[in-house]
């Protein structure tokens, strides 16, 4: 079982988030992403063509995934590394903990990994008596708060500098209590100092992977802080945890994807550190890990291949969809209740944890389509959310008022004569009732609407009848 979800309570979570003034203040910082991505895309004339290329590479790889995995595995072994397969989260945790125990590990540094979040790795390590230390600044902050990330590339985006100061004062008790932590620079310097000692003391380093390259057996990580690199070069062993769809055929293919990844994510032309790792320390190497393991996780993904949700396996986790999503921007990532928030989370979560648990999330969309417009690998996110809504409805998982309402509407909509008569009557009645003010401040059965805004009174004729008389006039 993967990490526990509260996605089924999305509606309650979202209401809570909307009334949380602190969260709403913090979320205002996340709006910078939109302009930065647009500027980076505008600077590169080939950007749209690169998106097509990135999509084509992912589609090609997915339809040949078994063969590329074989090729990748062969190259990792040839370079002195080991490959382990995990069918689900529990198996992945078990493999990693056994590896750590076999090396006598007491402390483990971690580069930011969404797969590690998905399998609930930190709790499992702690339960096994091994201290996990998150080293990405955002991940470190939320680890101190025992929280899940609220964004896939900016995990602490729901927090303000004052929240961070509070956590640091609580956690770093051995530092001077009257030190100044007013400026973000001071917070960063403190985290650097505290984590530097943890890096040097760690027995094992665990990172995720942005890409696994079949041609060379290489894992690639992308960071701006350099934390992923210190995580993997200082300890005696480097463990990579990655899901099956991270495979790309060649270094050239990785370069195509890297060109759209950083621009779509942070609006940088390139992230500061793009690191390609192939096997453990070689003869003569004065540094680097002595052991190199890759744990490849399925956890429901292989079942998505060949089906209507296969598109989702192209995702390179840039976060552009959530940065451009009006729903995500309003409620933040925690409301989504599991590991992956925003539009990509709304599609992926029901695939990975089931429609009963995650089926509420595809409703968290206005279908404005911005996510699909900015997705670097052109995933049709709104279309797939629509597929999930259909499935939720078919399986009678949507709330009863919604099902009855849709049934009621479908009854009229499939009987045009009756529909015209009923809407014509309603339009006339509402027109007469609202003719004084021209709007309604409250209406029976529509309290959810009128609580936040007025309903304009109809003008007396339906759209259909107005259209008929107008098109008649044109003819």
């Amino acid at each position: 079982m993967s990490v526990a979800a509260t996605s089924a309570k999305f509606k309650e979570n979202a209401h809570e988030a909307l009334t949380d003034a602190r969260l709403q203040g913090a979320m205002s910082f996340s709006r910078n992403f939109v302009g930065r991505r647009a500027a980076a895309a505008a600077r590169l004339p080939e950007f749209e063509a690169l998106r097509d290329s990135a999509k084509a590479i992912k589609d090609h790889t997915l339809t040949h995934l078994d063969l590329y995995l074989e090729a990748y595995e062969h190259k990792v072994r040839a370079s002195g590394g080991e490959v382990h397969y995990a069918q689900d989260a529990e198996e992945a945790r078990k493999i990693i903990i056994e590896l750590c125990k076999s090396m006598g590990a007491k402390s483990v540094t971690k580069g930011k990994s969404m797969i590690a979040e998905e399998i609930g790795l930190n709790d499992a390590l702690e339960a096994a008596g091994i201290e996990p230390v998150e080293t990405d600044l955002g991940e470190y902050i939320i680890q101190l708060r025992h929280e899940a990330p609220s964004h896939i590339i900016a995990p602490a985006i729901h927090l303000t500098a004052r929240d961070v100061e509070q956590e640091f004062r609580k956690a770093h008790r051995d530092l001077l209590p009257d030190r100044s932590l007013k400026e973000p620079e001071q917070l960063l310097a403190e985290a650097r100092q505290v984590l530097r000692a943890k890096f040097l003391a760690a027995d094992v380093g665990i990172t995720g992977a942005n890409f696994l390259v079949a041609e060379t057996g290489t894992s690639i990580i992308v960071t701006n802080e350099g934390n992923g690199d210190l995580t993997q070069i200082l300890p005696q062993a480097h463990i990579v945890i990655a899901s099956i769809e991270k495979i790309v055929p060649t270094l050239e293919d990785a370069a195509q994807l890297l060109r759209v990844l950083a621009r779509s994510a942070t609006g940088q032309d390139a992230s500061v550190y793009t690191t390609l790792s192939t096997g453990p320390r070689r003869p003569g190497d004065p540094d680097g890990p002595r052991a190199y393991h890759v744990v490849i996780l399925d956890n429901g993904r292989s079942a998505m291949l060949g089906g209507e949700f296969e598109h989702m396996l192209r995702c390179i986790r840039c976060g552009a969809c959530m940065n451009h999503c009006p729903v995500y921007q309003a409620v933040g990532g925690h409301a989504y209740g599991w590991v992956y928030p925003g539009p990509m989370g709304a599609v992926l979560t029901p695939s990975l944890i089931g429609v009963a648990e995650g089926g509420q999330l595809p409703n968290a969309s206005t279908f404005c389509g911005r996510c699909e417009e900015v997705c670097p690998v052109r995933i049709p996110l709104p279309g797939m959310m629509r597929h999930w809504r259909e499935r939720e409805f078919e399986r009678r998982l949507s709330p009863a008022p919604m099902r009855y309402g849709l049934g009621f509407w479908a009854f009229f909509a499939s009987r045009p004569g009756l529909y015209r008569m009923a809407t014509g009557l309603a339009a006339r009645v509402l027109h007469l009732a609202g003719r004084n003010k021209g709007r309604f401040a409250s209406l029976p059965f529509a309290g959810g609407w009128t609580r936040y805004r007025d309903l304009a009174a109809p003008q007396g004729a339906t759209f259909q009848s107005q259209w008929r008389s107008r098109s008649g006039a044109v003819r």
Partner: protein
Amino acid sequence: MSSRAAVFASIRRSLGVTGDEATRRFDVDMRLKQAPPGIVPKRGQGDIPARLATFKAEAERAQASVTEVREWADAPAEVARFLRENNCPATLRMGDDPRLADMPWSETTLEILRGPSDGGDLNAVSAAFAGVAETGTLALVSGPDNPTTLNFLPDNHVVLLPREAIEADYEGVFARVRSVYGKGEAPRTLNFITGPSRSADIEQTLLLGAHGPRRLHILVVG
């Protein structure tokens, strides 16, 4: 059934394949052999002076500083100047790269330390494997010549980059990797570095010097 077999079986069931299809195997083998380049941005292309100009502009956009020296022998004085002007201590760690070893460090007052870093060093110098004009990026490879720890642990990282090693794009660096390490092979660690370390995790404010170097100074040689 092993987990490996179960994962492969599930992938093949979903794709409706056995894994033995000759055409699929052929397509995969060809792609791995040919490594087609895809869309390569024009931005980095051009002769060496054009690539150097793009490299410099892009590296500076990423908050690295760039200077040029004519000869390898001119580098120590320039490294010493950079450290002095930034009030850095006069110590410098480096690996066994012969290009670095042959330079006249004794003409400076710098104390030279050799080998990987244990985290106690403030300054390090490395020699790059290549550069990428497209994004102002350095490519460094692991090994005794340029230990990977030097790229991340010190506060100030100076990197020497031969002018003729500035490739237009990443594909150019991969071609160099294949010519040095062989087709399908790669160094243990290949670091692409674009500017100094940074984080924007606190209120989306960009700050330099997160876990890696606070300053990245590039000396183009030649």
